[in-house]
């Protein structure tokens, strides 16, 4: 395979969902035409994955100088073309914009650099060398040991040590074994997995292949969210390309290792993020969880040992194998190693995809990277962890972001959704929103979750309408604890978390809805009090 000579200058045009919907397609076509018209034979226009500053799309970057063009308009491409003409060998790199300054890219290092639909481009950027290294120079046990020593923990939300999980699967009796990538990203307000798979699908496939080798699996599945058509298309293409190139299928990279990989589509059931429900769904059944143990690691898909890892977890595997466990373990905090990708959204100036070392403070994410609140608005809270997470108030802005610290204050790192809320958001309304989500997504199998989430929703709805008493508040707290303790799976156990955390830090808002019948944020529909006759 020969690659064409490196161009003198390139324009990278983001082709991720935000930019595409802002017209990135027209931009890349327009730029190509204008570059050709200007006779710039040594300039390349390349379609790349996410350039991450989603709020300012469509985005175009000139990698030689680092210059980033925001909100590019199809009829105003002259600035980009002029900048491309100016690039020469000594072009100084412009300093990174504040949005990028504090970020550290491992998972997203190829995002916005490679063409997501080209396996050649991935390989040219060092892709599949970690798989080759693992297969030809390491035993499965050595691969697992490397992951254990790296300190990598599951990025899907629970933070379970990845190496430990791999060891359990490898030591479980039974064959064949299966490896599954959970790409059914279900938390509202989270688009990390989507971006990684859209921008760099081979990275996840490579990680899944290494994981399969490490645990002795011969078959692998990518369980992909049905609502992400672009992801499905790119993952399917990437698997087919990898098979053709000999990185999947029979005798991978001319070794004894064989792996067949398939895509299975989710169909919009949040509960399928739970491992046993996900397995039921791959088996073609309703996604209802079953009690654990036995854990899927011992008895999973078709009752065989099964490894399930999240997209972001798997995207960390290749760099760990390539650069070593010590390198990875040197990043982050004592208990949380490496980086975390967050989807920064809500009431901040700069929203988008953010990858930061574990242990960075919330203040740095919200105010330095995100640029703080829009004019005239006051910070109120950051919501993390989706429907099983909580709201973090201003007093904890200087706390490090890692698994332990967030758990201490009653929320989760979760899968990485981070929604900033200003003073126009009502915390009772936010709790009500998430409970509405949970009652709708409850699979109905166990009573505490099926009935409990509905009752909790009705109580919250009453409070938000100014129709509740202090006794209702007491009932809410009691029931929340019961649902937490007695539900079968993580969906029910986590569903009361938004209530608990908002009650802990914003109890006064609940009280003013009940006692004064006012919503301090002005977000709730409180009807004027009926005057008793």
């Amino acid at each position, binding site marked *: 395979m020969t690659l064409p000579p490196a161009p003198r200058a390139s324009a990278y045009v983001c082709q991720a969902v935000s930019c595409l*919907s802002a017209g990135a397609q027209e931009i890349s076509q327009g730029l190509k035409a204008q570059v050709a018209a200007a006779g710039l034979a040594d300039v390349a226009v390349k379609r790349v994955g996410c350039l991450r500053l989603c709020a300012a799309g469509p985005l175009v970057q000139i990698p030689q100088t680092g210059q980033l063009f925001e909100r590019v308009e199809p009829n105003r491409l002259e600035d980009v073309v002029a900048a491309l003409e100016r690039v020469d060998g000594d072009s100084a790199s412009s300093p990174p914009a504040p949005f990028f300054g504090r970020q550290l890219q491992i998972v997203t290092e190829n995002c916005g650099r490679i063409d997501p639909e080209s396996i050649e481009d991935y390989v040219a950027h060092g892709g599949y060398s970690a798989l080759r290294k693992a297969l030809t120079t390491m035993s499965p046990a050595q691969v697992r040991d490397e992951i254990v020593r790296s300190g990598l923990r599951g990025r899907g939300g629970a933070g379970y040590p990845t190496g430990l999980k791999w060891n359990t699967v490898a030591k479980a009796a039974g064959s064949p074994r299966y490896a599954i990538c959970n790409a059914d990203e*279900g938390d509202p307000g989270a688009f990390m997995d989507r971006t990684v798979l859209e921008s760099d699908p081979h990275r996840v496939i490579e990680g899944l292949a290494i994981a399969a080798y490490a645990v002795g699996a011969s078959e692998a599945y990518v369980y992909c969210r049905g*609502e992400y058509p672009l992801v499905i298309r790119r993952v399917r293409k990437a698997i087919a390309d990898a098979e053709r190139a000999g990185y999947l299928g029979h005798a991978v990279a001319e070794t004894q290792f064989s792996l067949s990989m398939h895509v299975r589509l989710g169909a919009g059931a*949040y509960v399928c993020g739970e491992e046993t429900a996900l397995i039921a769904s791959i088996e*073609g*059944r309703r996604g209802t969880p079953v009690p654990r143990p036995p854990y899927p690691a011992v008895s999973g898909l078709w009752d065989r040992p099964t490894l399930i890892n999240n997209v972001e977890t798997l995207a960390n595997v290749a760099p760990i194998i390539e650069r070593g466990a010590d390198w990875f373990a040197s990043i982050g905090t004592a208990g949380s190693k490496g980086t975390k990708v967050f989807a920064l959204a809500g009431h901040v100036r700069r929203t988008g995809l953010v990858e930061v070392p574990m242990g960075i403070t919330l203040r740095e994410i919200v105010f330095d990277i995100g640029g703080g609140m829009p004019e005239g608005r006051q910070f109120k809270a950051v919501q993390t962890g989706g429907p099983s997470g909580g709201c973090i108030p201003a007093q904890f802005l200087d706390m490090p972001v890692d698994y332990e610290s967030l758990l201490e204050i009653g929320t989760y790192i979760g899968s990485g959704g981070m929604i900033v809320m200003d003073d126009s958001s009502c915390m009772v309304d936010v709790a009500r929103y998430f409970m509405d989500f949970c009652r709708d997504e409850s699979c109905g199998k166990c009573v505490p979750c099926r009935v409990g989430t509905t009752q909790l929703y009705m109580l919250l709805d009453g409070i938000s309408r100014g129709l509740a008493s202090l006794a209702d508040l007491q009932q809410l707290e009691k029931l929340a604890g019961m649902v937490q303790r007695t539900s079968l799976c993580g969906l029910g156990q986590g569903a009361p978390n938004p209530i608990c955390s908002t009650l802990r830090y914003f109890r006064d808002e609940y009280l003013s809805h009940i006692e004064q019948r006012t919503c301090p944020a002005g977000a709730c529909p409180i009807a004027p009090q009926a005057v008793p006759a």
Partner: protein
Amino acid sequence: MARQNHTSAAPTTDARWELVDARMRQLGNRPDALIEALHTVQETFGYIDRRALERISQTLSVPPSTAFGVATFYHYFNLLPKGEHTAVVCTGTACYIDGAAELLAALETELGVGPKQTTEDGRLTVFTARCIGACSLAPAVIVDGRVHGRERVPDLLERVRAL
């Protein structure tokens, strides 16, 4: 109820069935191909009707009750035909705190259609989405497959009326 059956159900002799049959065959006509088969039906015909469920359950040796149970369990599957056009309002967290509810309310009051309902004339079906992952564009709406970000009520109404 604003629901209308303006599209006739897919006849069983329809050539499009070959796509569905091929997908089931590819997966060995085994019961675990059920969800994939439902996806293929929806992709091909736009929705899943009773005859499709019967055909799938026969081919895959799955009881019709199980096929119906699975098709109704998952939010993504439609058992009713869609209108000519679709508008999907994202109700993810970022969209919610930025006014997704107002967009839905406007469609309801102006056009008389709530989520999963179709206008009387069969022109437009409204859906909600859990989160389409375009949080930076909140509130987001997908009209006929195209994402529109930072959507406000007047823009949306104008957009769907122009369809």
